[in-house]
């Protein structure tokens, strides 16, 4: 059972307009909703499902694209209306996969009204929307409605992409691929327990990105068992931090704080690596952000952590710290410094081709401008 999420008044208004647009349409219509994966997206999907077949909105069928699936083939068979998700794709080749899917939609555009008689609602991330805009102009120019669900400004920690504090500096991974790797690894004799622990941790991180928290908990439990017998203190500290991050994502700040304390104890049982130390510090600062402690001291400490993470060879996480520091500075009215932090972090993400956090920072830059207008 998904609990309702407060999208905020502005987003509620945008959703009301979307419903009006869907109800006013008489046949095929393309609507685009930009919302990042996570709780906000799940809330959008929940609302769309609630409108389906009511008050003039045609029935809407949720179609989730799996790994390697063709969007056009998946729409085959005829539908009264469709909510299409999954164009982001996952795994190391996700940019290429997204491009292929976008190309396919562009190419098949004229046939889509035969496949979907009513609304075709694409629920996409900023990265995919940009791809549609730049690579599929014929398809995209057919949209009859376009809206964006913006992150809630008073909950900055939650607004950031889930995986920013994941256990590995990786791009989003495909859970199906990870499960297949786990199946093969579990068959090894003697068992590779530590590797299994790592894989389950990555699986938890991937599931967390999708807001599939029951599956996250299950994966973390297995990783915990594996690390209990074969992991190092750093492994266990990382696992506890991920548990904390998941709790934080669910708005359970006190629980997250408990996980942080346990992670600290675990790390201190030996001499922790500089990376783990910096991660613990960063996590502590994020919890302070969740408690809305917008102070200059917090901004300064984030700057120090960013330097430490860079020194520990973790540029992605260092840029995450800079992103958060920008949020604090923006809140303190130090707009130019905030922009400088976001611009530096954005350059890092762009260089490493990490599209989602880069697009997120672009949005922050845009929103910061908007608030000053």
């Amino acid at each position, binding site marked *: 059972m998904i609990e309702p999420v407060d999208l905020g008044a502005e987003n509620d208004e945008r959703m009301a307009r979307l419903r009006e647009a869907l109800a*006013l349409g008489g*046949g095929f219509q393309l609507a685009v909703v930009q919302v990042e994966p996570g709780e906000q997206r799940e809330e959008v999907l929940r609302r769309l499902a609630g409108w389906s077949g009511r008050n003039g909105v045609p029935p809407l069928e949720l179609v989730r694209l799996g790994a390697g699936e063709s969007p056009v083939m998946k729409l085959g068979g005829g539908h009264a209306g469709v909510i299409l998700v999954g164009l982001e794709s996952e795994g190391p080749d996700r940019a290429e996969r997204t491009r292929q899917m976008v190309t396919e939609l562009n190419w098949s555009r004229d046939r889509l009204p035969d496949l979907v008689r009513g609304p075709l609602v694409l629920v996409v991330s900023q990265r995919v929307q940009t791809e549609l805009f730049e690579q599929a102009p014929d398809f*995209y*120019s057919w949209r009859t409605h376009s809206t964006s669900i913006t992150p809630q400004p008073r909950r900055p920690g939650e607004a950031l992409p889930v995986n920013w504090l994941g256990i590995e500096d990786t791009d989003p991974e495909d859970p199906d691929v990870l499960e297949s790797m786990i199946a093969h690894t579990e068959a090894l004799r003697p068992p590779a327990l530590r590797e299994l622990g790592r894989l389950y941790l990555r699986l938890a991180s991937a599931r967390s990105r999708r807001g599939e928290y029951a599956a996250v908990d299950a994966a973390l439990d297995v990783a915990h068992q594996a690390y209990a017998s074969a992991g190092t203190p750093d492994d266990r500290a990382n696992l506890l931090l991920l548990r904390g991050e998941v709790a934080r994502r669910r708005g359970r700040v006190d629980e997250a704080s408990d996980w942080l304390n346990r992670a600290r104890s675990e790390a201190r049982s030996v001499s922790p690596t500089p990376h783990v130390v910096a991660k613990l510090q960063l996590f502590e600062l994020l919890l302070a952000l969740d408690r809305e402690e917008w102070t200059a001291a917090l901004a300064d400490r984030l700057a120090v952590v960013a330097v430490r993470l860079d020194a520990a060879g973790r540029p992605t996480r260092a840029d995450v710290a800079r992103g958060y520091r920008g949020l604090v500075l923006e809140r303190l009215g130090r707009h130019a410094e905030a922009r400088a932090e976001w611009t530096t972090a954005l350059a890092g993400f762009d260089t490493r081709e990490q599209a989602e956090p880069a697009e997120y920072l672009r949005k922050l830059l845009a929103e910061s401008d908007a608030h000053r207008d």
Partner: protein
Amino acid sequence: MTRSPIQDTLTFPAVGRREVRAACDPSRPLIPEEQGQLHEDLSIVQGGDRIGQIENRIRDAWADSYVCELVTGHAGCGKSTELLRLASELRKPREGRAYHVVYIDAYDYLNPFEVRLPQLVVSLMAALAEEPRVDLRKTRSGPKLWDQVRGLLTKAGREIGSDLAKEVPVLKSLLRVDLKFVRDFRRESSDHIQQILSLIRDLVLEVRTQLPADQSEIVFVVDNLEKIPDGETETKVSLHETLFLRELPLLDVPAHLVLTYPISLNYSAVALRQVFHDARQTTIPMVGIRQKPGLAVRGDDVQGIATLRRLLARRVRLDQVFTDEGAILGVIRESGGCVRDLLRLVGEMPTVGAIPFSSATVDAVIADYINEYERILQGKSYLPLLHTIERTGAFPGDTDPAWKQQLLLGLIVLEYDTGTWYDVHPLAKRTRAYRAASPES
């Protein structure tokens, strides 16, 4: 395109909220039955009747000379609408002569990830086989070409029957859906391409003998080739350049050809006209709504705005749907002269306000689209370039070609009067990202 004309279910010009939204649906290119009611001649504000000129060049072609017309344009400029109109006009007798137009939608025959000359030749053959007045079995070269193609299909791993007429649906499906098969087929064809080209040439000639004497000239209109994505071929060369600059020029059939092509090739180092023999290029531009650069004060292009107003008036009852001329003028200006954008903006108005729509409704409806441009433009390195284009109406000579493509494809920069001048989309100009990049800020 088998849908029924929109006027069967909707009375024009529309007045009600639901009707206005339906009347301004940007995803409906006009089919021939809708042209009389809804088509507005934009030629006078698009630098001349370009489609009419194509028709004239085809009709004026002497004896056995054939024209090759290459057509492109931005998304939403009305390419498909204009090509369907061209096909419809060419089928009408004029001075005792009409044309047998074979309209080929590339989507029906090709896989976007593997479009090359052999597949295109097969699609011409399949399209001819589907023509009701044509029986390829009664030609000498039809069965011969089909045998040749069948042999290659077998080598690529698919056995297929000997009766082409019966096998066309299977053939089309294979070419569209099975990417591995299509790639294998193309590889197998490479050694036989000259033979295939020669046979299709003979076939088109023979088909013409089956047609009525006053309609014996064939025009192939191949639409949607412009949507083929660029990529790399097996030899690491651009697919667009391979297909459009090297392979398609080899297609030499005794028929007139009208082919669409990606607008990005307008900015390629190798000019299409250099490689296509006697081909003419046509780019369908946006409708000018702002005066050209060069004037001290650049006001509205009165003629362009009046034309778009007439186009809109065919669809909605302007005096009842809008509060005043200011609101109408406002929405036309925000469209940048892109017809599809104009229709989208008006079609969205019922979701933000009640009829009659005012200037405030226009502001409300453009807000979301400005945000969309905002998110796309933030942090982009080309932002200062946009100010140069806005000021001069031109791309500087040293513009990165990739930027140029991106800006034009994404409708951030619009082209007017076929390359004569450019302008930044009005909605893009309204973004903070654009304003912040101003040299004066």
